[in-house]
């Protein structure tokens, strides 16, 4: 599977019943990830956005009732994952971190490709440095390079930019939007501006068990211009929906 032929069909997800610590997080939840588009998941803290993403990523224990329908059989080997923590292994150089996936699987990889990605992300100069010498923004860019190196059709991102300062965040959003174009992306975020800049479809999650509100579908090509009045209106609407949603934590 390469970026040149991403999953052509939409991915449709159904979550059965999931309880945690005595409370029911989900009880029959359906949503789709349209092929090649960015879907965004928002909601108050504790509603279960990260849990949902982890379910889709296959990071939850097997017993969780979930079915995923896509043209491929499940999402095995189709996913690249990016978290709020850059998860760069501190004993490896940036370059070694970018090629981590191949190394772990014992696959061949093309060093030139990794270096090219680093160059596109303005990290070529730090390719052989240890992550500790990099700033937060640089580290998250390295994580993005690693994600891209995986070259998977589905990309799952759990608040990847929320730990960064605003300017760095905006820059990273632009990088991500450009470089992940054409892939099926599920982005969890708590930033309405980010959602509106990047997503083709935005779901707000609310309540316990969690349900999804009717999605908002911004128009125009991402990353959307911040001066666009539609963007600001959309952001306001999102904020209003979020405010309306029930607190759960």
């Amino acid at each position: 599977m390469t970026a040149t032929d991403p999953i052509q069909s939409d991915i449709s997800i159904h979550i059965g019943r999931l309880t945690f610590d005595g409370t029911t997080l989900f009880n029959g939840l359906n949503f789709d990830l349209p092929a090649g588009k960015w879907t965004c998941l928002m909601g108050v803290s504790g509603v279960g956005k990260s849990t949902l993403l982890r379910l889709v990523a296959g990071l939850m224990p097997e017993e969780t009732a979930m079915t995923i329908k896509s043209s491929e059989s499940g999402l095995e080997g189709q996913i690249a994952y990016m978290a709020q923590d850059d998860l760069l292994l501190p004993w490896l150089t940036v370059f070694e971190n970018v090629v981590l996936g191949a190394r772990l699987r014992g696959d061949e990889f093309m060093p030139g490709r990794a270096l090219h990605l680093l160059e596109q992300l303005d990290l070529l100069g730090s390719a052989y440095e240890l992550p500790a010498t990099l700033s937060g923004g640089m580290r998250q860019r390295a994580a993005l390079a690693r994600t891209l190196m995986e070259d998977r059709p589905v990309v799952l991102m759990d608040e990847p930019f929320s730990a960064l300062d605003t300017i760095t965040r905006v820059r990273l959003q632009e990088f991500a939007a450009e470089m992940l174009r054409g892939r099926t992306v599920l982005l969890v975020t708590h930033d309405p501006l980010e959602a509106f800049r990047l997503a083709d479809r935005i779901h707000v999650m609310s309540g316990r068990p969690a349900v999804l509100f009717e999605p908002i579908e911004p128009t125009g090509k991402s990353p959307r211009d911040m001066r666009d009045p539609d963007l600001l209106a959309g952001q306001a609407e999102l904020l209003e929906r979020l405010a309306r949603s029930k607190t759960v934590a």
Partner: protein
Amino acid sequence: MGAMKLIRPLIITVGLILAWQAIVSLTEVPFFILPSPMLVAMAMIEHADKLFEDGLVTLGEILGGLLLGIILGTASALVMGLFRPARQWLMPVMVVSQAIPVFALAPILVLWIGYGIGSKIAMATLIIYFPVTAALFDGLRRTNPGYLDLARTMDASRWAVLRRIRIPAAMPSFASGVRVATAVSPIGAIVGEWVGASHGLGALMLHSSGRTQIDLMFAALLVLAVMAVLLYFSVDRLLRRLLAWSPDSLPSND
């Protein structure tokens, strides 16, 4: 300054020697309680080859114990980290083994293994086995779950995760265990020698004490102390270099 790093310990050492001399002079303590630095220095020169010989023996015991203890500890921790049954059976054994004062086993070891360096190496090994195992095992257990999540989404095999993520991530914790082991291994060797030996600095201390050669006793003690300190600093230095990526060794940025 680089120079300061060498000068400071030197000054401390000289200071301690002067304080020592001051105590002897001021309290007029008899030589068989606390000999003066001068007497000890003379004993060192007079018995230089005996001290050297015995020093090598003790060093051999310390290093032997260190090596064996680290190898056994590493193997145990890896086995426990990989196989749940091993964990369940070995953990209680290890905890119990720590509860028994290891020194109490010294006479038994000498009885079973003999007067030679074997029993001393065994002693040192026993003392450091648990700290090393516990340190590595703890490190393996506490792998950042984020790394494990990432590896899972990358379809990594269990072995790849162990080899490329869990073990490297456990190294700082392991290094702490090795540091403790380095500090404690001499104790095992010396206690072993006290119980039954004819060679080694501990044996020398005991025998010279019995012959009221207190100056030689202190000389042996000093050689031991210097040896132990040098060993510790060498090991520490080596570990710092190997773990240069570890957070406390790198300057903070941002």
